[in-house]
C-alpha cells in the first residue's frame, strides 16, 4: 500500500491489466446441464434418499415373485384372516437362526371366530432358496424358486392373511407391480398429450392457443371422480386384467394432461422471449426445430419434476378406482384391489392387518413428493 502526497491510497499488489480472455469465469459451471442438476440435487438429502428408495422399489418389481413366499392367489383355506406372524431368531435364549412357530386355527365357540394359537414348543426354521408354487420371474421365466418359504407344517404370513387365506405380504409385493407401473404408463400418456398440446399452444399462440386453452378449461371443469367412474364403467367386463390395467392407466393419463399442458404452455411463453430462441428464428430455423432443439431441452428438467409430482396422483387415482371396485378386478392384484377387501369397517376393526396395503401407498406417494421437490429445487443449476 502506498500513500501519495495528495493523500491518495494506491494498492501495490501486482495487477495485470490484460486479464486473460481465455480464462473461464465460472469453472464450476463448466459441465452439461444434467451434471449440474445432479450436483445440486445431491445436496437435497431427503430427495436423494427418496430417489434411491424408489429406484430400489422399481428394481425389485420384476423379482417380486422371488421375494414373496407365496403366489398372489394361493389360498390357505385353513388360515383365513390369520394374524401377522413373527420370524424369530432365538428360542429359549438360544440362537437358532430365522424360524417360525407353527400356528393352529381353533374355532372359538363363544365369539364364533377363528383363534390362532401359536405352538411355542416347536421350532421350524425357514427354508431359503426353496421350491414352492410356480410363478413367472419378470413375467417371463417360469420358476419355482423363492427367496424363503414356509417350512413343512407351518405358514409364514408376515403381515397376516386375508379373507381367503392369501398372504398379505406376498400380495403387496405383487400388487406393487401394477400399482407402481400404472403411474408410469399414465404419465407417459399424459406427457405425450400435455407436451404436444402445451407446446403447440405456447409456441404458436393466437387462435390455436385460445382453442387449446378452452379445451383445457372444459376438461378441468369436469368433476374428476364421476368421470373416472363413468369411463371405467364403460370398460367391457369380459376384458382380461391386463387390458383393463392398460385402459385404466390411459384413462388416468387422459384426465391428467391438462395440468401439464398448462405448465408447458406457460414455460414455453417465457422461453420464447429468450434471445437464443429469437436468434434461432432469425437464422431461419423452422418452428419444429426451435421447439425440438431449443425449447424442449431447456424444459426437460421442469417436465421431469412435474412428472414426478404427478405420478402420486396417478397411483392414488388407481387406488381410488380399484377401492371402489371400478378399477382393476380380481384376479389382478393391486394395492387398491387389496384395500377393496378392507372396505368393511367391522373387518378392519377385527382384522386390522387387511388395511396394511395403505402403508406402501403412503410411503411411495411421500417418496415421490420428496423426490419431485428435490428435483424442482435443483432445476436451475445456473443460478447461485
Amino acid at each position: 500500500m502506498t500513500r501519495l502526497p495528495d493523500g491518495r491510497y494506491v494498492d501495490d499488489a501486482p495487477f495485470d491489466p490484460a486479464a486473460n480472455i481465455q480464462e473461464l469465469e465460472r469453472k464450476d459451471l463448466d459441465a452439461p446441464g444434467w451434471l449440474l442438476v445432479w450436483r445440486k440435487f445431491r445436496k437435497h438429502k431427503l430427495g436423494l434418499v427418496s430417489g434411491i428408495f424408489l429406484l430400489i422399489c422399481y428394481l425389485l418389481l420384476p423379482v417380486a415373485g422371488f421375494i414373496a413366499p407365496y403366489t398372489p392367489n394361493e389360498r390357505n383355506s385353513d388360515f383365513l384372516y390369520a394374524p401377522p406372524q413373527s420370524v424369530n431368531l432365538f428360542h429359549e435364549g438360544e440362537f437358532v437362526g430365522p424360524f417360525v412357530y407353527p400356528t393352529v386355527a381353533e374355532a372359538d365357540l363363544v365369539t364364533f371366530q377363528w383363534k390362532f394359537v401359536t405352538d411355542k414348543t416347536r421350532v421350524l426354521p425357514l427354508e431359503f432358496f426353496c421350491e414352492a408354487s410356480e410363478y413367472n420371474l419378470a413375467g417371463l421365466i417360469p420358476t419355482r424358486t423363492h427367496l424363503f418359504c414356509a417350512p413343512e407344517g407351518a405358514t409364514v404370513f408376515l403381515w397376516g392373511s386375508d379373507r381367503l387365506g392369501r398372504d398379505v405380504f406376498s400380495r403387496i409385493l405383487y400388487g406393487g407391480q401394477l400399482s407402481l407401473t400404472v403411474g408410469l404408463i399414465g404419465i407417459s400418456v399424459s406427457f405425450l398429450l400435455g407436451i404436444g398440446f402445451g407446446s403447440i399452444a405456447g409456441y404458436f399462440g393466437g387462435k390455436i392457443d385460445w382453442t387449446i386453452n378452452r379445451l383445457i378449461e372444459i376438461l378441468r371443469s369436469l368433476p374428476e371422480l364421476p368421470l373416472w367412474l363413468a369411463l371405467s364403467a364403460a370398460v367391457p367386463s369380459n376384458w382380461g386384467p391386463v387390458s383393463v390395467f392398460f385402459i385404466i392407466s390411459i384413462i388416468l393419463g387422459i384426465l391428467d394432461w391438462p395440468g401439464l399442458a398448462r405448465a408447458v404452455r406457460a414455460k414455453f411463453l417465457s422461453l420464447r422471449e429468450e434471445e437464443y430462441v429469437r436468434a434461432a428464428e432469425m437464422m431461419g430455423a423452422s418452428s419444429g426445430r426451435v421447439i425440438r432443439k431449443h425449447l424442449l431441452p431447456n424444459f426437460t428438467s421442469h417436465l421431469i419434476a412435474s412428472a414426478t409430482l404427478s405420478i402420486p396422483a396417478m397411483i392414488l387415482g388407481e387406488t381410488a378406482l380399484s377401492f371402489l371396485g371400478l378399477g382393476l378386478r380380481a384376479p389382478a392384484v393391486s394395492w387398491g384391489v387389496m384395500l377393496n377387501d378392507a372396505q368393511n369397517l367391522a373387518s378392519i376393526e377385527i382384522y386390522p392387518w387387511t388395511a396394511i396395503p395403505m402403508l406402501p401407498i403412503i410411503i411411495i406417494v411421500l417418496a415421490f413428493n420428496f423426490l419431485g421437490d428435490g428435483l424442482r429445487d435443483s432445476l436451475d443449476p445456473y443460478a447461485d
Partner: protein
Amino acid sequence: MTPLLSVEDLCIGFGKGPDVVRNVGFEVMPGQTLALVGESGSGKTVTCRAILRILPRIAQIRDGRITLNGRSGGLELTALKERRMRDIRGDAVSMIFQEPMRSLSPLHKIGNQVSEVLWLHKNMRERDAKRIVLEKFERVGFPDPERAYESYPFEMSGGMRQRAMIAMAMVSQPDLLIADEPTTALDVTTQAQVLGLMKELQAETGMAMILVTHDLGVVANMAEQVVVMNRGRVMEAGSADALLSAPAHPYTQQLFDAAPAIPGEPELAPPLEQDDLILQLNAVSKTYTMRSQSMWKPDLMIHACRGVDLNLPRGKTLAIVGESGSGKTTAARIALGAEPPDAGGEVLFRAHPDGDPIAVHKMDRAARIAFQKQAQMVFQDPYSSLSPRMRILDALTEPLDIHRIGTAAERRDMAAERLRAVGMNPDMLQRYPHAFSGGQRQRLSIARAMMLDPALIVCDEPTSALDVSVQEQILTLLEDIRDEMNLSYLFISHDLAVVARIADEVAVMRQGLVVEQAPPETLFYNPQHPYTKALIAAQPEPDIDRPIDLKLVAQGAGSPESWPEAFRFSNTVIPSLTQLEPGHKVRCHV
C-alpha cells in the same frame, strides 16, 4: 472532524468460499459524496449492502468494523442487534436501488409506500405523513404530486419511478444515502436529470451519500471522494479531483482508457458516398394498434416508426440512437424482415453490389432463406442469447445445420476458425455457455453471427450489458471484423459515446421519427436539433471541469411540444427532414 461513516478492514464471503470483499476500508464525511467505482464482480454492491446488513443469507461479514456517527451518536453497525438495525434502515441510512421496476411493490400506491417510512420511524399520523410526502414529491419533480400519491408504480416511467424511490429515501431526512447504481437502468437524458436532482437535494439537506457506479463520468459529476474497487479489493482511493486528473493505479487508468467518450474537438466530416447501398429503408412506418380499455373509445394507434428513410452503404456502419421507446429496435426488426412495415414502406437489401435487390418487406420462403444467410443479428443480452443446454460447438454450427451447409467435420473446422477470429481458443468448443463471462459470451454470439459469412449484421445494443473495459474490447473486435470481412453494420444503441467510435453515420430517433442524421463528427461538431444537443450534453464525462449542462438536457429531453418553434412537432404537424449541409439532415421547419 469525525467521519459520518467509517468502514475498516471489511471482509465478506459467501458460504464456504473465499472472501469476495477483502480488507476494504473508507470514510464518508458528513455532507460529502463518496463514489464506489468498479465493474461487475468487484464487490461494490456487497460492500454497500453490508453497511445496512441486507446481504443475501449465505453471505457473512467475516471481519471488520462499520461505525456510524449519526444523529444518535456513535454506533457500531456490525455489532448491532437486528431489532436496532431495523430502526437505522430507512431512517438514519436509506438506500436507492438500481432497478426502479423492481424496487417498488406493484400492489401498493406509491404514496402509501413512501409514507410507510414515516409511519414506521416517526410514528406519524396518516394526514401529517401525507403532507410531508406530497412536499417531497413536489421537490423531486412530480408535476402533480396528488396524482403521483394515488398512482401505482406501473403507471409511471422508469425515471419517474426512480424519482419516487428518491423521495422515499429522502423523506426521513437521512444522514446517509446509499445509491446503488441509481441511474444505470435509465436513459441518458433521464440519468442526467436524476443525478442533478440528487445533487440539489444533497446541497439542501446536507446529507452524505455513497454512490455506487461503474461510470467515471458519473463520478466526476457527483463525488468528492472516490474508491476504485476490483475483485473485492480497493485499488485506489482518494479525492475525485486528484484521482480523475491523474489516475495512479493501472486499473483506474484502464477504466479511464476504456470509457467511451464523445470526441472533444470534432471536425466536420464529408458525407458518406451513397452509390453502393447494401440496405435501404424507404418510408418505413410501423403502427401498432392497442385495444382501448373501454368499448366506446377508439383503439389507440402507436406509431413506433414514422416515415424512416435510411441508407446503409456497403462496408459502413449506420447507427440508430435513441432512448427506449424511440422506435430504434422496431426499425431494426423491420430491416431484418422479422416484422413487415406498414403498407407503402420498402426495405431493399443487395447482397452483392451488382445483384438484384431482395425486397425484405415482401419476401417469399425462398427469398427469406436466401436473405437469412446474408443478414445476421447480435443480441443485447449475452446471458440469454446462447442456449444453456447446447455446447458451444452446437450453438455455432446451428446456422450451418439449418441451411444444410457442409459436413460435420467442415462445420467443426469452420466453428474453430470463427472462434479464433473472435479471439477465443478452439478448445472452448466442447464447453457450455454458462461457464463464460458476459464478454466471452458476446464474442461467442458474434462468432455465431459470422458463421454463414453474412454481408450485414444488425447489432442490437451489443455492449450495453457489458462492463466498460469489456465493452471497449467488443467494440474493437466488431471494428476489426468489419474491416477484415467487409461487413456492414446496422448498430442500435442508446449511447452516443459508443456510437461515436464505431459509426460512419448516426440517425438520432425520437418518438418514431429520425430527428437528425449525420456522420458522427458532424453531429458533434454542429448539433442542431435540441434533442441531439440534450443527448450530447447528458453524456457524463470523466472530467471534473466539464459538468453536465442540465439546462440543455432539460430543454431537449422534454416533450416535442416544448422544443423551440423551428423544431416543434405534434401528432398532426411534423416538420420534414431538411438537409442543412451535405450529409447533415435535421427535422425542422425551414
